[in-house]
């Protein structure tokens, strides 16, 4: 009669159990002053600038905005620099970043939005629907699990101006609520 002994092998775990990331302190959503300044961060993806500009127009109808500023990044594959974001944050009250319609650019537009949150500027990120889960995973890795976003159907780059305007309208109220829950009250 033979006896089978269980045999084990010792191996290293190849994946990294990340240390918990320090949570991002999101900017407080306080009632907006008259003449509030909205920043739009265009990452340079095709039609991103157009869609953001239309969203800015919609936001003028929903919030007491005094100005809407567009900043265009030289590459969607890099985030804004920390110092650049801090400098811009000093002259704005709200920020919308985008367009996250690819893997890298959605992750980095999220990163841009969180840069402004860290600076005390309420922000959100505009993405297309197929990148919702990608952005959710990056949000965890960046210390902002469950961070909100504005989601439009993919693709954007092939849409007409009229279709883009509809997309802008479709997320405008969500943008108002994510940036300033008191925005509707301020107008009432």
């Amino acid at each position, binding site marked *: 009669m033979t006896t089978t002994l*269980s*045999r*084990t*092998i*010792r*191996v*290293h*775990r*190849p*994946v*990294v*159990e*990340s240390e918990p*990331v320090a949570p991002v302190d999101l900017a407080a959503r306080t009632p907006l002053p008259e003449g509030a300044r909205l920043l739009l961060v265009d*990452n*340079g*993806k*095709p*039609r*991103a*600038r*157009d869609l953001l500009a239309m969203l800015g127009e919609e936001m003028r109808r929903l919030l007491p905005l005094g100005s809407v500023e567009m900043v*265009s*990044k*030289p*590459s*969607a*594959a*890099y*985030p804004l620099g920390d110092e650049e974001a801090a400098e811009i944050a000093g002259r704005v009250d709200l920020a919308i970043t985008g367009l996250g319609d*690819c*893997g*890298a650019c*959605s*992750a*980095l537009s999220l*990163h841009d939005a969180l840069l402004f949150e860290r600076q005390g500027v309420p922000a959100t990120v505009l993405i297309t629907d197929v*990148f919702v889960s*990608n952005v959710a*995973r*990056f949000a965890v*890795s*960046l*210390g902002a699990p469950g961070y909100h976003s504005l989601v439009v159907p993919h693709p954007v780059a092939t849409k007409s101006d009229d279709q883009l305007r509809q997309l802008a309208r479709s997320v405008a109220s969500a943008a108002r609520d994510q940036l300033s829950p008191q925005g509707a009250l301020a107008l009432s």
Partner: protein
Amino acid sequence: MTDILEIDAERVMEEFFERGWTDGLPVVPPTPDAVDAMIATVDLARDDVIGGIPRRNRWVTVEQAAINAVMAGCRPDYFPIVVAALGAALDPAFNANAAFTSTGGAATCVVVSGPLAAAVGMNASHNALGSGNRANATIGRAVRLVARNVFSASTGDMDATSMGNPGKYTLCFAEQEPPAPWVPLRAQLGFAPEDTTVTVMSTEAPRQVANHLSEVPEDVLRTFVSAIKVPSNFAVGKGGQAFVVMCPEHADAVRRGGWTQEQAREFLSRESRIRPEELTENGVPLEVGSANDMTPGSDGRLPALSSADDVFLVTAGGPGPGWSAYIPSFAPSKHLRAVTRRVRLAGESLPDCGPDACEIDLSTLSGGHRSLTPEGAS
């Protein structure tokens, strides 16, 4: 120090598959002895950080790299090359945060130039880009396993690849020393002949370039041009980078025709510039108002390759009919770039004084830092 797990030896492979720790192929179990043998080949501590992606809060240590190198099937003497490749891939200019998550689904192409390649048995000849050589296959695979297991570059996690390409398993080969007066890639990039360098680039899959019937240099180079100015490549019209991998016949034809490598690179860069109509006629609209400037130059054309310096001209492959390869970057060079690092072996004095790391003027350092001065340096 990473966790040590104790797993039923007969189930170890299934465990690794079930936990999502492999690229879909079996791996070698990373036992402590095997991992220690890797680490012993470099003058680094196991907890030293090779590099990281700050924008996703991830860093790779020597030990984590060694674990994944064991899993990939590397022999310990390959590990210094793996470490150099990871250092290059984690250079900010390479932009791994974008490369490892882009829908473009790029391979991490690794080209090794120098004596260490042959010393560890890498293949630069027949089937250089194909299967069958352990060093080629496993060095490239180790880099991708680190991307997967340390930087979460896997589908369902932080890799948003739409299609991908087979080079994502591994895409690594050695350069064949070209006949004089041509010089190897490392020398073209300013490194010493005795150095071994690793150049990494985020690329599409390789394309075969066939020309068996002409030894006229311009004919050979124009065949490459036809492979370069392809509208379906995302960088064409915007300006990318590429490995131009010449087989011995094609390299000989161009060299015997009296062309220098610089002239060949300039020809390929210039002649692959593309008319905007060639893009639109193939259904590719020009980007307008985007970060990619697609305004034609004074010649009325757009770049497929950003410049002659963005052509990485190497020789590889076995003799026979002229089969070469073209391996383009998957995205324009303004977003991410190839990076080269020198391979350092255990016992080498610090600092690494390749052209990528010699910008520090040692004479300006305080006395406390001068202990890093290499032997013999003043």
